């Protein structure tokens, strides 16, 4: 029978390369500027990461199911613009569910194309990136969208409020992460998502409805995008049509930084959250250190690659042998 390695516990620890990377550069930034770790700053980073983070939670589902979603940035602009517009037209209480319904429709459309028609998700969502942008421009006439009465609306609570001393966006992010994390890790549905992404054919042979599973992943993603749009809209009570532009790649970077494989079948919500925090803290840390934005680009590049490499090395046990 197979013998258990005595160093197993050590090696399990050593496998968490991404956490080690995270810890290392938190320390480095704190040394460079002690304000980095101040409560104010941490809250500020997490709060502004919440939007990216909420989107990344949904995209984690999509990526684990073996697909991509490049339309989330564009879709987030759409939700933001729509909810702001409806806020003044029908009032916030109705605007929010309406916006969610519209965003979910977009998600359902993508889910239908990728899940049921089995079209390639990269191209479908790239196409939707462009199409939804067009839709947003048509909807808004290309104009900024602003709430008329910014002081007197309770709508600002999602982006600007606090509860128990914690900013609401952070609470939403944490709650959603917990909910989706449990769904993914502990429920039959989560198991199906992993199976479909790991080997879609085998999943089908096991009686899992592959199309439906993929479809729901896109619905979840759209739901997260709508939530992000809500926070965004509520945070600034006004927005441009391009507010989410380019976020798709940042979101994907966060998900993959967290260790999800683009091939599907692996990744966890917890690690995505770490990925989101890493990205958020890198951006903020480099700002605090006061580097030019273009030096930040270069440094971000190096940090991303080092972090992922560290993670891979750790999983292969190389890191452990380097230390031990």
């Amino acid at each position, binding site marked *: 029978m197979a013998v258990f390695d005595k160093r197993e516990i050590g090696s399990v620890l050593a496998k968490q390369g991404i956490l080690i990377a995270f810890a290392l550069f938190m320390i480095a930034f704190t040394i460079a500027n002690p304000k980095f770790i101040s409560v104010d700053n941490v809250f500020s980073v997490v709060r502004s990461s919440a939007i990216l983070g909420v989107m990344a939670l949904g995209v984690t589902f999509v990526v684990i199911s073996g697909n991509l979603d490049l339309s989330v940035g564009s879709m987030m602009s759409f939700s933001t613009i729509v909810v702001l517009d409806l806020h003044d037209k029908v009032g916030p209480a109705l605007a929010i569910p309406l916006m969610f319904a519209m965003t979910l429709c977009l998600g359902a459309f993508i889910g239908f194309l990728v899940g049921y028609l089995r*079209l390639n998700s990269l191209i479908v969502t790239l*196409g939707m990136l*462009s*199409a939804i942008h*067009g839709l947003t*421009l048509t909807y808004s006439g290309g104009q900024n969208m602003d709430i008329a009465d910014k002081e007197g609306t309770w709508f600002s609570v999602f982006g600007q409020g606090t509860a128990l001393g914690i900013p609401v966006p952070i609470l939403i992010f944490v709650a959603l992460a917990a909910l989706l994390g449990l769904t993914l890790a502990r429920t039959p549905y989560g198991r199906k998502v992993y199976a479909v992404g790991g080997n879609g054919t085998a999943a089908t*042979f096991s009686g899992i409805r592959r199309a439906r599973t993929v479809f729901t992943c896109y619905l979840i993603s759209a739901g997260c995008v709508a939530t992000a749009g809500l926070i965004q809209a509520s945070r600034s009570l006004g927005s441009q049509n391009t507010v989410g532009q380019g976020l798709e790649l940042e979101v994907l970077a966060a998900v993959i930084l967290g260790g999800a494989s683009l091939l599907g079948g692996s990744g966890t919500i917890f690690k995505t959250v770490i990925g989101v925090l890493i990205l958020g803290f890198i951006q903020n840390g480099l700002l605090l250190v006061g580097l030019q934005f*273009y*030096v930040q680009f*270069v440094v971000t590049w190096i940090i991303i690659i080092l972090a992922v490499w560290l993670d891979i090395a750790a999983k292969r046990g190389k890191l452990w042998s380097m230390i031990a």
Partner: protein
Amino acid sequence: MQKVNLSVALKGGAIWGFIVLELLFFSIAGEYLSVSDKAFMDLENMLLLFKQSAPIGIIAMGMTIVMVNGNIDLSVGATFAIAAIILLDSMTWPIFAGLGDWVIPVAWLLALTVGTLLGALNGLIVWKTGVDAFIVTLGSMLGYRGIVFMFNGENPTSHLNWTLVDFAEAEFLGLATATWFLLGVTLVMWFVMARTVHGRNAYAIGDNREAAVNAGIRVGPHMMINFAIIGFLAALSAVVFYSESGSVNPNDGQLYELWVITAVVLGGTKITGGAGNVIGTFGGVIAIQLLRKGLGHIGADTSTVNLVIGLILIAVLFLDKQLNIKGKEELRV
């Protein structure tokens, strides 16, 4: 048997059918909607089409081999910008002052070398760290863009050399310089991928990496060569284009990666690797340029253009899928 041949022909031909469809549509719609008196399918307009396809097209040929290889390169837009800067900036360097117009080939060579090196650097990182190409190049898309800005801050880098412009604007046998480069690159890449051992190994690696490793193909260096090729081609694209325009903004080439990938996938290359060819990619590039040109021709506004381009991408994919369905007998998985 004949039916089989037909379906095989259709299978590879979805993109060409789509191009015909586009031509028909824009010609007819143009009659009613266009302000211009000129027909869409005017010969000159079609020749322009090839020329205008060059910037994306040349890079797409490199992306084809990289994607067949099972990788992807998101940093091509930034490499494109860096090469352009080197091209234009180096012509003003004091050490080359004595060269006169001979500075042009030197600048070309420098730009191409830098592009190749940047590509190779991506390849080296992929090879040595084992990090997925998607992340490596997502990172260098940022990093290389940072390097672009380091050259000249936020300012454009410019050097208008009219000799160079005249060369780039010249026509030979009725085709513009850029068109010749696009055709040449397509031909060479076709040769590399279909005829050489390196090209065939690219397919093998993309198809079944483990099998390739087991068969003793040195996968790491092989992939690095392909990244160097795409770096070279991104630089070549920049060299061809900026010879004619003489100035580069630090954010030029942004989103090129997405357009290039779109063209390649429309042309039938599998995202997971192992299948695809440059002729299909050529079709994909032409289809995209036609779409842009045609929508301008019939006077669509920006929001419509965005909407239509997006939906058409999806429609092509759908068409392709329908043509590839083998029939009712197929296993439903």
